[in-house]
């Protein structure tokens, strides 16, 4: 029997054909965009809504290589640096605090009893509704934006790790105690190393939300940053900058995701082998 390449349950789309299938939706999107853009530009050569690719390339090269007239910065890079810094500090603090809270509240029943309802309550508050409060409390500087990202990620991470630790077999904890581990050794020498890969994976999944909070905060109040730039040029309908910026943010997100996946595979080789 011949194995079908595309149709049915048993299809095996491999090799070059698989690669072609993967690129197909991207190609289609680009083609549709080009047709629509050409059609609009044919009617009005100054149309700004669907700029041509060459137009967008010019704009992004200008943003990346020509110093800004006002500040003297290369805007693409200074925006990227400012945004990534906020993202890393916010998500990093969220991961660290989330790890400690999730781990300890899962291991120690006393802490669990005390924190469970409270953490659930906090985690249900939509973080964006806190933005005005954060701006009032911390001013419009860096702190408020970083805090928003922190608040937006810390509860997801701590709850996820909490549940993950609770799912570890009880036998492991008993076993560690029979090997002479103290309460703290069980927590930090037995359980902590086991949940590190899960922490990285959870952080990876919360990055999507973190970008959302970052861009939202920057659009409302900032002087630089990827979200700020998009919000700023929107006033001039500068789609030739907005679209490349969106693609750039997507690429950054993709790279971060890939790096974290690589880190899990490299640092914790036992994590995946245990699941297959």
């Amino acid at each position: 029997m011949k194995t079908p390449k595309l149709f049915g349950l048993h299809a095996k789309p491999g090799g070059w054909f698989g690669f072609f299938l993967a690129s197909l939706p991207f190609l289609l999107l680009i083609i549709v965009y080009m047709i629509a853009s050409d059609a609009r530009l044919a009617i009005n050569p100054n149309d700004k809504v669907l700029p041509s690719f060459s137009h967008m390339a010019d704009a992004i090269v200008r943003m990346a290589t020509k110093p800004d007239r006002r500040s003297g910065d290369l805007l693409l890079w200074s925006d990227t640096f400012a945004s990534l810094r906020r993202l890393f500090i916010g998500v990093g603090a969220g991961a660290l605090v989330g790890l400690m809270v999730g781990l300890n509240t899962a291991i120690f029943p006393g802490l669990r009893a005390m924190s469970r309802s409270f953490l659930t309550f906090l985690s249900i508050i939509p973080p964006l509704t806190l933005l005005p409060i954060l701006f009032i409390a911390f001013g419009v500087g860096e702190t408020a934006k970083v805090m928003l990202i922190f608040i937006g990620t810390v509860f997801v991470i701590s709850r996820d790790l909490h549940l993950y630790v609770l799912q570890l077999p009880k036998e492991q904890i008993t076993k560690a105690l029979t090997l002479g581990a103290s309460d703290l050794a069980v927590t930090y020498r037995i359980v902590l190393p086991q949940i590190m890969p899960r922490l990285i994976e959870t952080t990876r999944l919360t990055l999507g939300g973190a970008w959302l909070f970052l861009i939202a905060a920057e659009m409302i109040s900032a002087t630089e940053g990827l979200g700020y730039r998009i919000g700023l040029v929107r006033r001039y309908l500068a789609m030739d900058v907005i679209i490349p910026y969106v693609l750039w943010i997507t690429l950054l997100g993709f790279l971060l995701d890939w790096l974290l996946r690589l880190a899990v595979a490299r640092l914790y080789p036992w994590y995946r082998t245990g699941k297959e």
Partner: protein
Amino acid sequence: MNGEQIRDGLRKSSLLHIEDVYKRYGSKTILDDIDLSVASGEFVTLVGPSGCGKSTLLRLVIGQEAPCGGSILMEGEPLGPPTPERGVVYQNYSLFPHLTSIENVTLSRRLALQPWQWHSRKKTILEEGMHYLEKVSMADHAQKFPAQLSGGQRQRVAIAQALIQKSRILCMDEPFSALDPGTRESLQMFLLELWEETKMTFFFVTHDLEEAVYLGTRLIALSQYYTDDRNPEAPRGAKIVVDRKFGPSDHAVSPSVKSTAEFASAVQEIRKQAFDPHYLQHVTSFDLSHPMSWVTHNAGEVAGEQPVQPGPGR
């Protein structure tokens, strides 16, 4: 000597002494007045039909759970949460997935150190760990993670991990139950040799009656299939219905004994006494012929009056 005196003597002299132990989950009684004394050096096997509470009893012994009533003593001292004097090997989860074989085996040694002491002691500890891995024929797999090992190899490493601890009693909960018959038999032989060599006390839970008869110098059967003077419909927890001395108690036996008529009849007899739901013995007629077995079923207990009021915890 009356029952009281025997019991008091056993309480002090036994390595492990379990007296009037009950365990309930909600309204369901699992263990219904368990009395058991284990001497140092015994290879105790615990069998029973599924759901009879064998593993529950093992968890009580290692301290993973607390009994609802009664007492568990080690050399006269009451036992609490898990400590290094009671080692354990489970069917699964004995090994930590994030540690290699050698790291798993030396874990108890490393836990005894502060992290900064590790460097100066590393060599001795790793050598000792390798020695134990050699003992279980796993030296070639020292750098592998548990997920990379077969089921039998994992159990070998788990046994080494527990042995290095030199606990007073080594509790095993169905350690070989997930293994294929060949691996299982070779591990049974291995365990007997180990027991002969170390003279350790083993407390081995299994659902496999032949395994229990083959391995143990003493066989305990737990069962919920019995009758007493309580209302016949009353929900009963499991009691010890068989407590027998087995085999030569000082050396490992070859698996060939499994084909003898004596072995087969012992298996059959215990199967009837413990595993047959229609064969209900009265509590006063259990086969408790082991020399250290004693019965605390006085008239009140037989009638179902419980001497110990169950409460939360012990």
